[in-house]
């Protein structure tokens, strides 16, 4: 019993750190990425001892600022709901992760630890339920603030939730029918197979229309451009969080990015094979663990040394540019990269090519989790990329797209999948 609780606790902590680590990175990527897309340089001023990390210090400064700001609250608010709404949004954003696997299992000392916090048999229903609960926080926050802009934002959020929840469920139904299960771990495991011996059986391959519908619905659910009508600042100030300030606003703000990470993780898990590394199934990884581990350590070490060399070259070139502590930065980063590279190369002396069974299992887990995180990072970045590319839809366009286009297409896709399954399994 005790090890079970410890395992669960460790997995929860890992997931929590994963999300909370992603949030500031995404805020940074949003600011810096949007800047680069628009030919600006973006934030690059905040520094700790001259180390600016290309603006990565800014999210920390932002959060510190929000924490120490005065909490201005509207006088006519609903006291309990006003404080409760941001917490609800954050809790909902966090709890979706419980059913998303970040690796298949870890085998240590004869114990087989599944790498998912809660492997629910109805995992997909849980996700749909929790996702629609997210709107409650927005709606309550908008209502409790007692302001017309927040109210309009809340109303729009509810409308888009009702419209797109159906499409989201419909787009996933095809996936359930093909994999025959609601369990997320099973769906991800099923995507490890190959069709015709070379094509990974990913969700996007078996359900391309479902993927397009799902990604649009998920963008609507997370209130991101082009479906950002709940907080469109040219129309309704800041939408549902207009009246929020200080730490409560920070919670809403972080929850928005946490929702993006959830959505990215869902897309990765359901349509892009989750933790599955294409053409490298677990059996293959375990069989050649020693060789692969040696190879990746050497490659990682070599790459770090190259990066270190580039930074040192830059440090030499930029000497005298600023005449202050900022000149330390490239040298510092180069030293870090050199240390990492030397550490990785140094670990080669521990003979990783003759790694044991437990070591192989850990290696497989690290590789698969890394693959999952890479996929999540890409789709989280896609959210930002799309936001700075596409203009947003008008309110009526969002409704029309949801009800008149996506819903019928979703139903047609479902019917087509059913017909195809009947023909294929006859």
């Amino acid at each position, binding site marked *: 019993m005790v090890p079970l609780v410890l395992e669960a606790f460790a997995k929860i902590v890992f997931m929590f750190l994963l999300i909370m680590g992603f949030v500031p990175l995404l805020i940074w990527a949003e600011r810096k990425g949007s800047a*680069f*897309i628009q*030919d*600006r*340089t973006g934030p690059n001023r905040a520094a700790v001892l001259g180390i600016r990390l290309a603006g990565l210090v800014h999210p920390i400064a932002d959060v510190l600022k929000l924490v120490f700001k005065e909490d201005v609250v509207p006088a006519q608010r609903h006291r309990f709901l006003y404080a409760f709404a941001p917490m609800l949004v954050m809790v909902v954003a966090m709890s979706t992760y419980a059913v998303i696997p970040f690796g298949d299992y870890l085998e240590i000392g004869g114990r087989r630890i599944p790498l998912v916090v809660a492997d629910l048999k109805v995992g997909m229903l849980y996700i749909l339920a929790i996702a629609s609960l997210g709107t409650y926080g927005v709606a309550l926050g908008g209502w409790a603030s007692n302001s017309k802009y927040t109210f309009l934002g809340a109303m729009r959020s509810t409308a888009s939730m009702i419209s797109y929840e159906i499409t989201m469920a419909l787009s996933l139904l095809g996936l359930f029918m093909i994999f025959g299960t609601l369990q997320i771990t099973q769906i991800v495991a099923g995507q490890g197979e190959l069709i015709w011996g070379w094509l990974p059986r990913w969700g996007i391959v078996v359900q391309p229309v479902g993927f*397009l519908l799902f990604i649009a619905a998920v963008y609507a659910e997370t209130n991101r451009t082009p479906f950002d009508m709940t907080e469109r600042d040219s129309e309704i100030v800041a939408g549902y969080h207009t009246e929020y300030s200080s730490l409560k606003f920070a919670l809403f703000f972080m929850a928005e990015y946490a929702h993006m990470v959830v959505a990215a993780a869902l897309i990765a898990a359901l349509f892009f094979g989750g933790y599955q590394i294409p053409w490298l199934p677990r059996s293959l990884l375990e069989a050649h663990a020693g060789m692969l581990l040696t190879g990746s350590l050497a490659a990682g070490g070599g790459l770090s040394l190259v990066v270190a060399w580039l930074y040192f070259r830059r440090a030499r070139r930029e000497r005298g540019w600023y005449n202050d502590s900022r000149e330390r930065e490239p040298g510092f980063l180069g030293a870090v990269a050199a240390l990492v590279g030397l550490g990785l190369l140094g670990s080669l002396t521990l003979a990783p090519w003759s790694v044991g069974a437990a070591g192989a299992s850990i290696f497989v887990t690290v590789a698969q989790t890394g693959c999952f995180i890479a996929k999540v990072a890409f789709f989280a970045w896609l959210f930002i*990329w*799309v936001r700075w*590319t596409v203009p947003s839809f008008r309110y009526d366009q969002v409704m029309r797209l949801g009800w008149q286009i996506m819903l019928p297409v979703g139903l047609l896709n479902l019917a087509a999948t059913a017909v195809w399954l009947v023909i294929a399994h006859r």
Partner: protein
Amino acid sequence: MPYKGLPEVVTTRRRSFWESAYFVEICKGLAVTGRHLLRNLLHTGEMPTVQYPEQRRDYGPRFRGRHRLLQREDGSPRCVACMMCSTVCPADCIEIVAAEHADPAIEKYPASFTIDLLRCVYCGLCEEACPCDAIRMDTGIYEIAADNRQAFVVDKDFLLHNDKDGTL
């Protein structure tokens, strides 16, 4: 029809099927923004942004910055307190108190010469009006900042020894 040549009704082109399906068009847009992103990532130094406090744009020699008073060879102001500049000044920011000069060849000199930099509109008319080239706006200083209004009223000594520093 008051405006000839303009269409009476603005008609929008009908979107084709693929355009109204959005996804293809969004991917094209992503390619455009992605190109900008990659170009800026790979050539960070070529971005047009001026990293202001460290880098500065070069302004032309005609740029009108903070004023300065020119000196004679003995260090006294070249100004003869003729009041041309304070008369022509549209913002009325120059105040001169004239006094008799010891040298009979020079009629007057400014006992005090103050400019209120907050009222100045940097039009340069004082330069144009000056008959003996005593006031110029060629310091190139444009960062004029202080934490109280009184500091912006600068006097003769300040204007005679105008160094290249923005702080007042």
